């Protein structure tokens, strides 16, 4: 197989495999905020023995795994309002300090969900502008400007198969030019000043196939690799 084979077949990652892939890039000692939803799953897939410290906007640094059933503490929840735990070394702080950590570039990585990302790294993840519902922004805009590096995890296309990586975002922006890396169910893509570089694609996929699902021009990185997570139940 070459990267230009148009008839190749491939299998998209499932959500846990996407989370797994994003987790592999979280380095020992990194302070990381995981957005609500899929990003939160990444916490489960940090390689064994690697210490990564997770931050939660509601005032926790050192978030642990989900509590065992029956051990939930009503006063210990994460940003998604699910029960959580605190690991050794974890601490609590108030909201303004939690967001000082976010806004002041103290976090190494903020891993966010997204509706759309532009080739310039513009992020749209806070409103679909549905006029029948009130808008909600939560901590999205704070998270999108604050961390040292902003990464996105999302399905490569919408439910109708249309690209979500766009030349220009159609939805209102969360922040411009902030995204540096995109993890999708098909690829890992870096946003650079020279454009979008494909670092990894799922086994069997070609650049042409990926390009067809992506609005702006993709370039294949010199050292690109196959994206091959372990098998996981979806």
């Amino acid at each position: 197989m070459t990267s230009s084979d148009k008839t190749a077949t491939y299998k998209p990652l499932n959500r846990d495999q996407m989370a797994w892939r994003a987790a592999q890039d979280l380095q020992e000692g990194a302070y990381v905020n995981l957005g609500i939803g899929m990003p939160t799953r990444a916490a489960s897939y940090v390689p064994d023995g690697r210490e990564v410290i997770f931050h939660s906007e509601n005032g926790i640094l050192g978030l642990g795994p989900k509590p065992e059933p029956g051990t939930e503490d009503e006063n210990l929840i994460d940003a998604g309002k699910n029960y959580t735990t605190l690991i050794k070394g974890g601490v609590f702080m108030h909201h303004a300090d939690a967001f000082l950590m976010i806004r002041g570039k103290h976090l190494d990585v903020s891993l966010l969900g997204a509706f759309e990302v532009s080739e310039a790294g513009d992020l749209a993840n806070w409103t679909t502008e549905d006029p029948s519902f009130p808008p909600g922004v939560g901590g999205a805009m704070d998270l999108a400007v604050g961390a040292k590096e902003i990464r996105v995890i999302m399905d490569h296309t919408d439910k109708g198969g249309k690209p979500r990586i766009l030349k220009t975002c159609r939805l209102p922006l969360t922040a411009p030019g902030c995204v540096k890396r995109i993890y999708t169910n098909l690829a890992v893509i870096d946003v650079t000043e020279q454009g979008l570089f494909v670092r990894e694609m799922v086994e069997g996929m070609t650049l042409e196939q990926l390009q067809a699902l992506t609005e702006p021009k993709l370039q294949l990185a010199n050292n690109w690799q196959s994206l091959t997570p372990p098998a996981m139940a979806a």
Partner: protein
Amino acid sequence: MIDKSVASPAEAVAGVKDGAVVLVAGFGTVGIADDLLEALHEQGATNLTIVHNNAGNGDTGLARLINSGRVAKVICSYPRSGDYSAFLNAYRAKTLELELVPQGIISERMHAHAAGLGGFFSPVTAHTKLAEGKETREIDGVLYVFEKPLKGDIALLRAKKADRWGNLVYDQSARNFNPIMAMAADLSVVQVNEMVELGSLDPEAVVTPSIFIDRVVVVGAKA
């Protein structure tokens, strides 16, 4: 002898005026002063502006105030959380105004008021819809948005323990907005699980110093 304790939630919220700005701490159902919110409902003040991260759930607390038509405006970051039908109905009926503020900016605006500042420039919302109509300024190549301080007439707080001066400690993530809102209101009232002897809280570990607290009511832990 200083004693900020009051006998009931009703006494704790006494005096709230129509049109008051009410800071309501809590994140989801955690760290929220349920009893004080119910007491505020009984108390009767109306035309309230509520500052809270979310916009109420079900038909208790903040949602009950909204359902009773007592809330004119909500300043929050994320109304769509849990069963927010009370807010949604009022929003759709246009009987309630929404000021949507990013979560960290709500906190920092209250911090700015608490610290006696006139406002600050923040990078959050720059180049977005939420900055429309706001003053912006480029500083060292980055675009910032001017944010005004945010102040409450009353803050409704929940803590784990208090002493008679009003020093407070919290329980884990129930800390959330409580310490910031305590600093940002003219009148800060707190419901606590337990009142402890003055001097029994570790002076290195008190989170909210007594200077920020006006009234304390013991309601016990959650059932």
